[in-house]
């Protein structure tokens, strides 16, 4: 790795960084284990995969491009509702095209919002993303003729995948479907991160003023990644709608925006696996703690968050990388 960093040819350098490590292959093989060893945990595994895809989408803008966001649930929710509405209001029940449609809708909204996003930074950015999230929530609440309001969207019906695999009670299809969605989203994000575009994004994150000086159009870069991230978040939302056949205002809730940031901080920002790991730890901890004490489990989430941030400021993956003696990215 260190030799590769010294190679004069930038393309070779990028290519070397983009190579698959044995750890990665082992990780993805491990995601199949729940099918064999935890068959009764598949509904949870499916929601972990969805949360992980959402976390990756946020990592792209927060961890790589440095856009601090507290309103990304708006895209998750828009995707969730888009997938739900074409099924319940227009009778389009085929899941894969529904997923694509949801991604397109969320991406289109993301593109429009990106014009606003690139104009502000820091605290103002936090407020803008928060405000957009709250606006979307109230809009969905007010448009109850379309969204079903506080009762949630009713009558969502999803056809079997490829006309064969029905969404079963055990959650086998749901997990396979969500995992496939996560994997494709991950491949796309991995390709982006290990490209020259990905490097430009990191440049924006580290020093936004220097990027124009070296001839990089940082605003265009930011708009692009924000749109891609919105589309991915929308697909995550659509996966949740399709696997559970529900869509509610909770998908747009501020809490979801905040939870995903917590997942990223737990796992480690600016590394795609951080989002996946964070999502898994958050969801499993939540499930187990809430099983022990349904009322006050948030106490332990707070405790875990403080413990991780105090001992491993760069998240669990950052801490592991330091232990393994690898340099930070």
């Amino acid at each position, binding site marked *: 790795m260190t030799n590769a960093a010294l190679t004069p040819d930038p393309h070779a350098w990028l290519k070397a960084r983009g190579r698959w490590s044995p750890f990665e292959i082992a990780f993805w093989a491990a995601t199949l284990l729940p099918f064999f060893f935890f068959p009764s945990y598949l509904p949870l595994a499916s929601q972990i995969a969805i949360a992980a895809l959402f976390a990756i989408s946020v990592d792209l803008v927060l961890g790589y491009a440095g856009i601090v966001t507290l309103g990304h649930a708006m895209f998750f929710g828009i995707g969730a509702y888009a997938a739900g509405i074409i099924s319940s209001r227009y009778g389009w029940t085929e899941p894969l095209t529904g997923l694509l449609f949801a991604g397109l809708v969320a991406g289109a909204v993301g593109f429009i919002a990106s014009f606003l996003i690139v104009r502000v930074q820091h605290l103002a950015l936090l407020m803008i993303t928060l405000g957009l999230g709250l606006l979307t929530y109230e809009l969905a609440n007010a448009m109850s003729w379309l969204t079903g309001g506080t009762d949630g969207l009713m009558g969502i019906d999803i056809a079997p995948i490829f006309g064969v695999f029905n969404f079963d009670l055990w959650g086998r299809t749901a997990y396979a479907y969500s995992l496939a969605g996560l994997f494709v989203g991950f491949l796309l994000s991995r390709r982006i991160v290990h490209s020259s575009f990905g490097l430009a994004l990191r440049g924006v994150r580290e020093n936004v003023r220097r990027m124009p000086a070296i001839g990089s159009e940082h605003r265009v870069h930011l708009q692009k990644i924000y749109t891609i991230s919105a589309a991915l978040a929308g697909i995550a939302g659509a996966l949740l709608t399709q696997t559970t*056949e529900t869509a509610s205002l909770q998908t747009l809730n501020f809490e979801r925006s905040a939870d995903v940031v917590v997942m990223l901080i737990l796992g480690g920002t600016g590394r795609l696996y951080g989002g996946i790991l964070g999502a898994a730890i958050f969801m499993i901890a939540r499930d187990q703690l809430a099983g022990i004490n349904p009322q006050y489990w948030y106490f332990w989430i707070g405790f875990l968050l403080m413990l991780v941030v105090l001992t491993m400021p760069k998240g669990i993956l950052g801490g592991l990388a330091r232990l393994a003696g690898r340099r930070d990215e």
Partner: protein
Amino acid sequence: MFKKTALAALGLGLALSTSAYAQETIKVGLILPYSGPFADAANQLEAGVNLYVAKHGDTVAGKKIEFIRKDTGGPNPDVAKRLAQELVVRDGVDIIAGFALTPEALGAADVATEAKKMMVVMNAATSVVTEKSPYIVRTSVTIPQVNYVFGKWVAEKGGVKQAYTLVADYGPGLDAEKSFAKGFTEAGGTIVGADKTPVANPDFSAFVQRVADAKPEAVYIFIPGGAQPAAMGKALADRGLTPPNVKLFGQGELTHPEALESMGDTANGIITTFHYTLERDDPMNKEFVDGYHAANNGRSPDLFSIGGYDGMHLIYETLKKTNGDASGDALVEAAKGMAWQSPRGPMSIDPETRDVVQTVYIREVQKVGDKLQNVIIDQIADVKDPNHGAAQ
């Protein structure tokens, strides 16, 4: 090969052990928003469940009742659905129950159908809930149930010709407005104006001013319980919109004992409709309230508590009727048409809709001694949800 056999043996062993276990116990999965904005409702409902079990023991038809509690964390239909799935496939529950919130009941409905498990809805109050699965039975109330007959009552017995409606702008509020207006106009009344207040805005002065300007004969109000009734009471008093200047009507939450305490004398004369009245003079209710006070540091039961209490009654009685057969089909069949005396009064399960049928009480806030309380001035027996018939 060896691995496969070992796995199969493990699976078989698990299956055998759970079925052997199931003969001794009946598992009830409780799905409630134990954390988040509705945690208080979940706790009150749970206290009702616990009180029933404490009173009647945890063994019914020779089997032990075991609870598994799951937290949804707010109105989360996707989480409710997953928890229902997990309760069925992992924990092997026989009955799923709880459901304080409509979206969560709707989310889990498909699981009840697919797994063929009885699902006891102990609160969620939208009409449509019981239509989502043939395995759903409801023991709480529906908003149209108490408000449609109330609208009729206000026009016929209340002698009111014109009313203004002011409701919170969300599902239950809109349901209440619609069903009250329907009953009221059918009985010859006229709605002279309708306004909606934001759910999360406790400043009612602008809305109340608009009502005052319209000078209506009567006002119908629906707002969520909690801090809002007191704020509403103050806004009404500030503009002289209190009885006897104007007649005030609403659903029970408006004059819940805790709300009355903070509203003070301005509440005197408000007429509300509800299925449960804390002060109802009845030995069974007195025993329920006293037991509840003793178990919960003096806290009074509310609509959530009674929903949970009667939900457990339904579970116990259906199990007795089936002799401990906990299959969904047998239990739902046993529940249909079941009638009993509850602390709230007589109630039953409609054999066609599996929804609750009960007495609706019309109460007026009066001073009893030096304390304000809801005094029952009229009651309407055997009220069904009016929307189920309309949908067919």
